[in-house]
């Protein structure tokens, strides 16, 4: 039983990372109806930036916040330069191809600039175990960071005029334009926020999986699974889904399929959700008019 509790708790900790990345995916999906396949690589790239800042001797939290700011700007720039031209004629294939292109560019640029050698990424939290040995200091810390970021995102969207404008732009672009919201810039801001969220996820997961250009591939698949499980158009669903996938991954990996097949758990979740309940647990049922 104790072992089970241990698995659940550490599953929740990694689930927090999936939840942040899933939230980033959902944010872009809600605004543009696109699934950003390069989300994980954007996060990986930001994490490398953080590593570089730390390497130059910056204190951890300074580098942490500067990286988030840089990731935000990076997200906005990518939307403006690469994604915007495809906004109008969004054939799914074209968009997917552009995302894959972005994926390749970021992945290869990171490997080119910083080498493919695995790097150790520091954790700002004490390394000992806490809570009676159930969680490591880093796990507890990352749970705290993730939850506060999620709370901040909620507060931003719920209580600020800009958050309201962004929600409006995602919900109903035409009407928003009529009341004077610059919809296209709201989309760019959404990309910026998604980039920032991804950066947090990247910096939190890097001490666990180590820093290397392909570190986010698996994380992204779990995040997708989480987003789909919760309903890809529902931010709360994405958060709940992310945590659920984290726990499921750990419990299934330990007791059912073995750690080698952990990734297949994500595959099974994705396919099961898509087939049995495509709108996810909390998503809106999509009705198409024909």
């Amino acid at each position, binding site marked *: 039983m104790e072992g089970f509790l241990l698995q659940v708790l550490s599953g929740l900790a990694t689930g927090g990372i999936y939840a942040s990345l899933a939230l980033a995916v959902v944010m872009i999906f809600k605004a543009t109806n*696109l*699934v950003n*396949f390069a989300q994980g690589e954007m996060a990986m790239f930001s994490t490398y930036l953080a590593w570089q800042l730390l390497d130059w001797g910056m204190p951890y939290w300074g580098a942490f916040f500067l990286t988030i700011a840089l990731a935000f700007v990076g997200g906005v720039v990518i939307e403006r330069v*690469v994604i915007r*031209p*495809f906004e109008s004629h969004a054939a*799914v*294939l*074209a968009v*997917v*191809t*552009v995302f*894959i*292109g*972005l*994926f*390749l*560019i970021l*992945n*290869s*640029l990171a*490997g*080119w600039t910083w080498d493919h050698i695995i790097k150790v990424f520091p954790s700002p939290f004490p390394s000992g175990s806490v809570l009676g040995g159930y969680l490591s200091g880093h796990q507890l810390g990352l749970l705290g960071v993730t939850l506060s970021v999620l709370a901040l995102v909620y507060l931003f969207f719920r209580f600020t005029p800009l958050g309201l404008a962004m929600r409006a732009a995602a919900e109903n672009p035409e009407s928003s334009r009529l009341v004077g919201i610059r919809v296209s810039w709201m989309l760019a801001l959404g990309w910026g926020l998604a980039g920032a969220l991804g950066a947090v996820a990247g910096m939190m997961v890097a001490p666990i999986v180590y820093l290397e250009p392909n570190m986010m*591939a*698996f994380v992204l*698949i779990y995040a*997708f*699974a989480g987003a*789909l499980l919760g309903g890809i158009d529902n931010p709360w669903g994405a958060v709940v889904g992310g945590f659920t996938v984290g726990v499921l991954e750990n419990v299934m990996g330990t007791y059912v399929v*073995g750690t*080698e*097949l*952990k*990734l*297949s758990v*994500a*595959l099974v979740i*994705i*396919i099961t959700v*898509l*087939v049995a309940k*495509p709108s996810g647990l909390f998503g809106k049922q999509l009705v198409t008019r*024909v």
Partner: protein
Amino acid sequence: MTYFGLSTRNWKFFGLAVLLVAACVLPFLVSNYRTFQFTLVLVNSIALLGINILTGYNGQISLGHGAFYAIGAFTAAILMDQAGVPYWATVPAAGAVCLMAGFLFGLPALRLEGLYLALATLALGVAMPQLLKYKGIEQWTGGVQGIVIIKPDAPLGLAINSDQWVYFFTLAVTVIMFLIGWNLLRGRVGRAIVAIRDQPIAAQAMGINTAMYKSLTFGVSAMFTGVAGALGAIAVQFVAPDSFAIGLSFAFLFGSVIGGIFSVSGAVYGAMFLLFIPNISEGISKAAPQAIFGTFLIVFMFVMPAGIAGSIRYAWAWVQRRTGAGPAKN
């Protein structure tokens, strides 16, 4: 329309014949290593044709075709390594296994559209290396180590070396697969496949069994890629789970898009691009060929979304218009 005494149709056949003769002469003119590279071009072109059928003609986006390539390669390798099956017999076997696997994966994929299918196939592509490394099947797949295959020699005492023989064997299979693909797409079935992409509801109203067609298209596409996988395994003489990472699936999509995803001939252009562009881009920047791939991909989407084949088609139409010989305008 005739040019220099030949109709457009005959020009096409003439061009194809020249191409085929050139392909047959090629291995005697270049080094063994180049022959091997051209074998890989042929292999990739079959895989890309599979993607073109599925994604270009039927509109189902797959980001995980590397998984079917891996299944085909492993089927061939295991049959040769464990059962002692001759290499030529493993190719149809790999095709059959992948047809089944693709059909079965295509059944749940039926309910998925566009991005969702891309997501599901992406997960398949990412999970495949891990599945192949699974301990329970290690005795067949060889685990992380993979399987080494012996390169087949030319039969009947032909005076060519094994690189050349593998090339000719691959060329023969390629011709057969392209004939199958071309025949499939030009007739009634091809029209149904395209109709499902453009107007699924209208297609259904016209009596096309969309569900059956979609999962069959998925199966056929996987079969093409599986055949390519088997040929690739024979040519490279080695299979291991980690050579089929998600980058392979991306490369397939990349090649298809560059070559021209809504065409049969585009598969060949795409395959050449895939093999020779890394060499060129390494000249530009030693370490970042992938970044150059990615940039190409995005730029292509801007300037020539129909790929090389599509651009050739436009150029041909332009020439015809200029010479006043084009199809009559209505």
